């Protein structure tokens, strides 16, 4: 699925998994990339699963490379 509040630039992804780690840690209580709502498929595809919560932008806060960024309103 796509998210209106998050912009994706897969070319910038360093595949560090931080987005997957914070997502799974927050919503499952453990660092578990397979249970994350964001999928990073090498070489350069980023997508969200249907379980991704509307409005959640946690992954953007932990992306240090500009691959997943918050779209500011207005």
């Amino acid at each position: 699925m796509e998210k209106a509040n998050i912009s994706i630039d897969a070319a910038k992804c360093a595949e560090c998994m931080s987005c997957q780690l914070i997502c799974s840690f927050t919503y499952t209580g453990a660092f578990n990339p397979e249970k994350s709502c964001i999928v990073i498929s090498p070489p350069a595809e980023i997508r969200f699963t249907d379980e991704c919560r509307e409005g959640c932008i946690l992954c953007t806060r932990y992306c240090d490379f500009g691959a997943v960024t918050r779209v500011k309103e207005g």
Partner: protein
Amino acid sequence: MEYYGYSGNILHVDLSNGHIRKERLDTSLARRLIGGPGIGLSLLVDMLKPHTDPLSPENVLVFGTGPLLGTLVPGSGKCYLNTKYSMPASKDEKKYFVSTSMFGGNRFGTMMKNAGYDHVAITGRAAKPSYLKVTDEDVEICDASDVWGKDVYEAGRILRERHQGSTGNCGTWIIGPAGENLVTFSLGWTDDWHNAGRFAGAVAGAKNLKAIVTLGHKGIKVANKKRFTELVQKKRREILSHPKYQATAPFGTGRTGRLMTETMVGIKGCSGGMCACKSIHEVKEGKHKGARFGGSFPAVPSMIQMQLQLSDYGEAFALLGRMNSYGLCVSTSLNMISFVTQQYAHGALSKEDMGGLEVKIGDLDYYLALLEKIVRRQDIGAIMAEGWYPLCNRLGIDASTDYETGCAITKGIDLLVDARIWPSLFKEGTGFNPCMGLGSVVHAKAKHTHSATYWSRDEISLADVKKDAEKMGLTKSELDRIFTEDSFDTGRLEKYGGDAETVYNALGICDTALHWESDPVRDIPWLSEVYSAATGFDITPRELLRAGERIFNLEKLLNVREGFTREDDRIPPVYLQNIETPLPAREGDRYLTDWFGKRLTREDLEGMLDNYYQERGWDVQEGVPTRRKLSELGLEEFAEMLESG
């Protein structure tokens, strides 16, 4: 019991008989030796018999993780490999070191832990080419006949497509044709962009082990989620607000030069993020357009171009890309090709020895052909593939003294960074490791040790060095032994740098990532807090540093058992010779100096070694741990290893 930080299991695989078993992690062992190489080396104490041939089925490969790997702790992407390495480390070609490779990765280690295993210990030899699949409870030795012979990138692509499902989270450790053909300076390759296990590719090749594939769904829990999150966020804020961070983080290691920045097509990092030190580069135009390589050390293409006198950077990229795809150590390949080419020019090798090659300095086609001979073990390539000592013994010369351009060799290894040149890369007193040369020499596997690097700051002073030592948790008496008002003792400081580096390794943390981006360099107090929050095992900074020392001593014991002594911690003779550098800022002859620029003599260097062993509490004459030190560290049960060398 439930494990936090740790996955709680060690996986044992015997490739000879296909036996696979799971062992619960002993928590008392984890408290003493933390994890990573701490646990890995302790497994080798029991599983690896002294004087085992590194290429025999009896050698053991232990892949390890630390309790913080796979979490959000910045830099928590380091994996470890403990084994007996394939490079002969003595002139009589009878000694081989037992040591630790630390390597980056994003999915390999994270998925190994998510599958439920902190360590995977592999012994035996498979009857045919195989790879190991580690996916939760489904552990299987699989047929690798379709990927055997393929380069690391192609084999990785095939295995990931086969096992990663819809999520793309499959991790891989793979050897190339060099490892398959038992080239002693071959290595593994992790998750496409991280070289992993210098001199261990052949150990896997000898086991008919092409790859390990990891994928897991179990999750890594932490004991105190609230405290752990606070500590991670504190360190993230500290790093993100560091003046250097925003200027450097987006560029991987390509940050260091215009050419590297202009050719960069992407950066890759380890799990845990923040510092992505692997950059991918591609030639944009000309004859070698499209030639590509990935790696973590930005000076390598320049080193290749200068040392082999290639006409342009595109040729260097092409050669480097080929070395990587074969799964060869770039440093040893480069130095050995250069050395053999010189020896041919001097008449020590004939055209027949070279297998009929047209030897032309600066000719890419010649270098590629020689590389092919190494990997296929043909003609001179078959001797080169055996390592430095076998090659030099065959030629009747000593590479460490007779190598014109200067290749520092210790324990059979060409050191990645020449201690004479390294300070030249930076301003005086800036950014270089005051213990660099010594740290390389005293380590079991001579290397470009990270101990006491200060890459994060433009200016560094003696006060900064002391501040770091204080942050490492040194006592007043220890500090007084190291520091005077206007100087410090390199040998004594290196002891604590080595212990602190070992702490990072045991935890699964990349010290490079934190060095580049944060101050102070060694935040042992923060690490002890985050370790306690993650695992539920309370530990003080001093105890954590002591655990690092314990692991360091354990690694030394494994090598004492193999016969290594102070004689093997040899200062490379070329370090006492001048070396010419073309670097504009430091043009002309360079020589080995101390922190303050004073030229070092052999007596100075031996004095540094004396002080290093003394600070370690080791026997200064022999350069090995004493029983008293082992007792102090709670390692009494290993004391008999002192007698078996």
